[in-house]
């Protein structure tokens, strides 16, 4: 039979258990808005009964949190895709703004004006103002190509900067996980559970999962190993292995993501991220945007090539030259190799007198894959056979120089070989890289009369201008299957569809993650009404325990006064 003293003890234990429970209710209410917090529960068990079977009251058990690790796992799995779609949507929208046509100042509009100006010039080849119009519209078009290309490049640089911030964030989170691993390991001794620290660690990993794809598992000591990307261990036990943005070794000015392990060993991880914001940033920076830049380059290149091809063998008003230097030069090695991109065929030069009458026609038979620039220069000089009339030479910078004698000038005739295009003679546009450096050629900028509209210096000849105006409706892109407009429309439509698809994907993914989070909330989050009910219950229990002690005290008094 238990003594009164032990009953007093029992009452005291009941008081402290209820107080602890009350404390936990307070803790839950206080943390109801804390990110990642799981509500905690106090558990009590009955104390061992005495030999006669009378119960010994209640004992406190470790406080636990209400938490479902399978739901958490699911969230960690889906979160990276969510981050990926969100990031993709954000950047695609920025790209869309760059390609935007709605204000009437997009590339499309510039192209339309460009073709229209040629159409107008073909109608008035003698008109100075129509020539100036072509020059202005062509300049606007070239500017727009360059502008869009550099805006896309700017977006790449911006992503680069954000990437660097993301790397810092990943490192911070990795460090936090390792630190919490250490603390949890010290705190937990088989009895105690580090509820709040575990919540904080989960929260850190969840934040990480928006940036990169994460794999994690817990070791027997309660420490979590975090693996990001394909196989990089970010945190293991008490250690973490950070990432580093490296400027060297990759494309100029573009960060490479390195993982740094023990002994300062580095490994390039740039291509190992599959999902999450970071992977999408890298993909945007190195693939998606670059592809749009290539699309612009392809257009700009082809535009320059098609226009130049027609332009080179044409003439403007008094556009015969007594000297011309090719735009492109060859280095000493290339000088001794056959000129690339040539075709078999003839290449003609006409010598004209000061009255623009053709005096002589020099014709060279060009062989592709055989003729080098010096070959062509020598053969031309042999054909002309009089340096006083016309002379070709190679400049120090590897470009070709044509010079006619006093009182003579020259123009280009038929060119089946493409020599004019390969070297950049009498060109309209100049470009080496495509959209990035598309410019009007020097001679067009200097004098709009140099714009070729016809042939053989006939001022009212509109044949060349007409052919250039007709390029608008001629399929010249992609193996001559699409017009410039169709190609560009294709790029725009592709981009629009990509944005739309991403919107759908993102909405779907986010609703999925939201549902899992809802499930988690319904399990782990705090309900005020519940807590208030608990609070009242514990209050009543505390009151009852106090009454019990009081009663036992009275009983003891009764015994003493007996």
């Amino acid at each position: 039979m238990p003594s009164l003293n032990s009953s007093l003890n029992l009452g005291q234990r009941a008081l402290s258990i209820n107080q602890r429970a009350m404390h936990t209710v307070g803790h839950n209410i206080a943390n109801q808005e804390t990110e990642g917090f799981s509500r905690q529960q106090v558990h009590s068990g009955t104390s061992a009964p005495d030999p006669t079977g009378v119960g010994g009251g209640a004992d406190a058990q470790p406080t636990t949190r209400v938490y479902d690790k399978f739901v958490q796992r699911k969230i960690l799995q889906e979160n990276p895709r969510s981050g990926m779609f969100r990031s993709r949507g954000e950047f695609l929208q920025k790209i869309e703004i760059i390609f935007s046509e709605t204000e009437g100042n997009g590339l499309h509009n510039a192209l339309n004006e460009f073709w229209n100006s040629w159409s107008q010039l073909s109608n008035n080849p003698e008109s100075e103002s129509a020539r100036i119009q072509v020059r202005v519209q062509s300049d606007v078009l070239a500017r727009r190509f360059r502008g869009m290309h550099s805006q896309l490049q700017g977006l790449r640089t911006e992503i680069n900067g954000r990437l660097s911030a993301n790397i810092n964030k990943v490192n911070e989170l990795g460090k936090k996980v390792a630190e919490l691993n250490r603390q949890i390991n010290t705190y937990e001794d088989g009895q105690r559970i580090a509820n709040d620290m575990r919540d904080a660690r989960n929260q850190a990993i969840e934040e990480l999962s928006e940036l990169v794809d994460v794999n994690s598992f817990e070791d027997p000591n309660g420490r979590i190993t975090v693996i990001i990307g394909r196989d990089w261990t970010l945190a293991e036990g008490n250690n973490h292995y950070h990432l580093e943005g490296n400027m060297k070794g990759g494309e100029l000015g573009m960060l490479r993501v390195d993982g740094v392990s023990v002994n300062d060993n580095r490994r390039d991880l740039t291509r190992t991220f599959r999902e999450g914001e970071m992977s999408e940033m890298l993909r945007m920076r190195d693939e998606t945007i670059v592809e749009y830049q290539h699309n612009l380059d392809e257009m700009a290149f082809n535009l320059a090539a098609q226009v130049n091809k027609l332009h080179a063998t044409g003439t403007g008003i008094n556009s015969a030259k007594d000297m011309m230097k090719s735009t492109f030069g060859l280095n000493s090695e290339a000088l001794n190799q056959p000129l690339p991109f040539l075709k078999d065929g003839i290449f003609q030069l006409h010598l004209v007198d000061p009255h623009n009458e053709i005096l002589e026609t020099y014709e060279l038979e060009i062989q592709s894959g055989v003729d080098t620039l010096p070959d062509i220069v020598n053969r031309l000089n042999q054909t002309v056979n009089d340096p006083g009339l016309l002379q070709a030479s190679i400049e120090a910078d590897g470009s070709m120089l044509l010079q006619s004698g006093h009182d003579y000038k020259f123009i280009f005739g038929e060119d089946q070989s493409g020599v004019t295009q390969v070297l950049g003679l009498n060109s309209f546009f100049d470009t080496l890289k495509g959209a990035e450096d598309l410019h009007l050629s020097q001679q067009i900028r200097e004098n709009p009369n140099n714009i070729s509209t016809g042939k053989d210096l006939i001022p009212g000849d509109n044949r060349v201008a007409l052919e250039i105006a007709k390029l608008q409706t001629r399929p010249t892109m992609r193996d001559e299957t699409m017009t410039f407009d169709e190609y560009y429309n294709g790029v725009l439509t592709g981009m629009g569809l990509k944005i739309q698809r991403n919107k759908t994907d993102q909405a779907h993914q986010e609703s999925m993650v939201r549902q899992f989070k809802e499930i988690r909330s319904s399990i782990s989050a705090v309900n005020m009404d519940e807590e208030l009910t608990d609070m009242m219950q514990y209050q009543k229990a505390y009151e009852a325990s106090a009454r019990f002690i009081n009663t036992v005290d009275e009983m003891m008094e009764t015994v003493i006064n007996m």
Partner: protein
Amino acid sequence: MRVTEVTKRDHVVDNIQKSSGQLQDIQMQMATGRRLNKTSDDPIGAARSQDIVTTISSQKQLLQNIVDNVAWLQRTEQEISHINEMLGKIRTLALSQAGSDSNEESRQMVAREFSAARKSLFDTGNAREGKLYLFSGIKSLSPALKRNGIFQPAKVLTEGAVQNGTGDFLDVSQFRAQFEGYSNNDYRIRVTSGGVWGQARVKISDDGGRTWSKEQILRPVTHVFNPDGKPNDQVLLKFSDQEGRLGNVLPKQFDFNSEASAEFDLKALGIVFPQGLEFIFQPNPEVTYNGSIHKKEALISNGLTIPVNVTAQELLLGDVENGVDTFSLLATMERALLENDGIAIAQRLGELDSAQTQVLKQLADVGNTIRELYAVQSKLENLQFEKESQLSDIQDLDIAEATVDLKVAEANNNLALNTGARLIQPSLSDFLR
């Protein structure tokens, strides 16, 4: 499922977000009046609308081109009608002088009118619109017609010449052979029997050596007759020394017809024309075409072009095979008038008709081109309207529909706010003392 504070809050926020997002989309559309504001709003529609914008823009340019070209062609038409009227007047005059009713005096008068008409025709052929010559083809900055010089040096061909013992080969440097006059014919004069002037005999061909006339004597001034006896072109072959004096080459007293000349030392005269020598005349009409045979082509729809020039060649000079050189014709007729030759005039009336037909054909062509341009213009204008309404269908907002949508979205938004406010307020704590 257990409801918690967090899920309650998330739900409310989520629903309000959704409904105000909808509201914002509609508001954006209403503000711009366009359904399509970004490519991603409707990628396929955006591509179609870009396509239509391009079509509208290039059609606008084509319409402008057409207006320019119609103005040009109307000016051309005017000038051609003027030429036609002129030729009609000339024909009436010629007809009145063709018979035997007319006298020499009136023919002289008419000849003067012919001369004025020729000049006027020449000027009309060189008519300009602004700084551009109407009838020069693509050589629009050069006059269409050019008057040729009346003199041209004869080309002397020595390849066929044979030495027959009468003397040395002709020394070309000793004298100058020159043609005078206008003709379209390829005259060749060939020495058939060698000798000095008055002795050497020549044959004349008017077709570059295919057919030849009878022999005639070579003189210091030789009339190059048309072998077929057609009215000739009055082309002369003249010889002179290097100073251009004719008399120096031949003694003044020399007379081919007198017996005394037979005793002359022919070799002392210096110049012996060997047999087989040829003098070649370059066809040299009074007026030649100076423009380009290429015509300016104008874009009238995507990739299609139409010629908008009439060249003075086809209008007044005719092509080589058939057609009439109006200037030569008038010159010949003028000469006939001056010579009081009514029959020759009558013979040329048929050619005058052809010259007029030649002009009328061009007039009809220009009319057709103008009509075609008008047809294209009205077609383009219709298309333009059609395309604009298509564009509007794709990118513009249906205001009535949008207003209804706006009302619905507004109601949804209110509802979300309302229920949210009610859901989130009550708590057990409100009911505890």
